[in-house]
């Protein structure tokens, strides 16, 4: 069975810490690294309008480069020149629910998630710690200034 680690990549301020921790632990455990980015779907009134006009809004994102492009491009750039590229996955929905679903179905050893810039745990990190079937590693947030880029 393939050993796998999932790195939950989201907001820029904690993103690179997550990627770095994912890369390090995947190398340490000899595991395959999967980078997951969950695109939030909104609830309430905005969610209603978003569902109503989702095709048009997707079209805008396509014109400007595709949904989730920013996050996954940042992640790809991060791993450029660092040997084998990890797997990238783009999912839409509620961040915590989708990550738990991925962990339930994906047979993962470890989930890497980011802390807030002040070091506290956000809803996603807290939810994963409480409910994830895999162990959870919280990477402390650092500004994404490119200084932590891995050197092979």
């Amino acid at each position, binding site marked *: 069975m393939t050993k796998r680690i999932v790195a939950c990549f989201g907001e*820029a301020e904690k993103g690179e810490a997550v990627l770095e921790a994912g890369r390090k632990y995947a190398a340490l455990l000899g595991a395959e690294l999967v980078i997951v980015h969950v695109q939030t779907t*909104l609830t*309430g009134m905005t969610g209603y*309008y978003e569902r109503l006009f989702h095709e048009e809004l997707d079209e805008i994102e396509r014109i400007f480069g595709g949904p989730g492009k920013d996050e996954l491009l940042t992640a790809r750039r991060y791993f450029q020149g660092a040997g084998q590229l990890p797997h990238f996955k783009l999912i839409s929905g509620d961040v915590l629910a989708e990550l738990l679903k991925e962990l339930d179905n994906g047979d993962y050893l470890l989930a890497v998630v980011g802390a807030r810039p002040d070091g506290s745990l956000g809803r996603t990190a807290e939810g994963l710690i409480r409910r994830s079937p895999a162990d959870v590693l919280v990477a402390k947030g650092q500004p994404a200034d490119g200084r932590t880029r891995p050197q092979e």
Partner: protein
Amino acid sequence: MNHSVIIAIVVFAATYVAIGMEKIHRTTVAISGALLLMIFGVLDMKEAIGFISWETIGLLLGMFCIVSALSESGFFTYLALVLARRLNYDPVRILVVFPIVTGVLACFMDSITVMLFFATLTFELARLLKVDPVPLVVAEVCLANTGGSATLVGDPPNVILGTMLGYNFNDFVANTGPIALVAGAASVLYFYLQFRGKMRSSQPVDRAELDRLDPAGAIKDPKTMKMGLAAFGIAILFLIVHPFVEHAGIPLTVPMAALLPAFGLLVLGGRRTEIVLHKVEYEVLLFFMGLFIVVGGLEKTGVIRYLAEGVAVLFEGNHIGLIAALVWGSGISSAVVDNVPFALTMAYVIKDLAATSGAMALSMMVWAVAMGTDIGGNFTPIGASANVVAYNSLEKKGITIGWIRWIKLAVPCTVVALLISTVMLIAKYLIRFY
């Protein structure tokens, strides 16, 4: 105080609070409130249905169909991309022109749809231009709400006030239009002076990526776009001419002015009709229907009359004070509560107020409430539906504006716009042009 009065007040207050909390869908809240009034016997079914302003619902339905066709065709994306290209992707020019465009669009169509598209498009452009999208989007929202005050169809509160109290498109254009124009110009100037220096990126911009943006590629369906624009133009034309046509004996009412071109669009739409119909905001129509019944409960039990009498005593002989109170009271209330139920309640209150002896003309109060309610929505991220949609759309993209930043950006221009409205309304009262 009999039990019907207490039930009507409690149901109204609970509905108001629940809508503001957004824990339960606002349509569910409004319909539940209406049902509770019927279950407790405050209103029977016939009375409840009688309180629904079908003119409002018809006008909204017609405009929603037309806007649905325009958005489905890719009109908003096309418009934004053409503008951005014409402006040579200059962020300072975008800071001036995009809010003006959202303001003009919001004069004639639902500002929520306008902001849903423009917030997303502005974010994407700002990302490529490497500038902060927040001042751009807040400026667009402020202008959308201000522009919405200019016409009958610009903002839901105006639709309610106009259709319930009998003021047409031309009445709004002649009375709130000039005020909205001056207030809008002041807002654009404020954002320009405040943020022009911050609209220059220190990082290099990928010009090739900008040049790859193809406005023509944004048009999904040229036929639907042409038909949507034609229907939109006809609806506006009908709204302008309907008082004269009706006077000539042809029953072109306010809702018919929007429904006729909308149904023409649906009949000629072919296979696209189903998609256009699918995107009509039925939930909003149900929300309005529920609210009409909930506020109708207050009207039937006499609560609105007590309120109106209280206001009449408070401002007896002080009409200028009443104008200022209506503008600022409506403005501040709209900052914290949903402006649709607020406008609906105020429509009944000022109608009853106008019936008291020595009262100010109803039209003057309509313009004051419309300006206050529409512009006051700018104060906070929850002040108007367009704000909520723009705020959440940016949040989804990872940009959290936060209440404090929103207030810092929007309050100065909102205060200036409300001051302009107050002064111009008082001037209108003094020269008796209302």
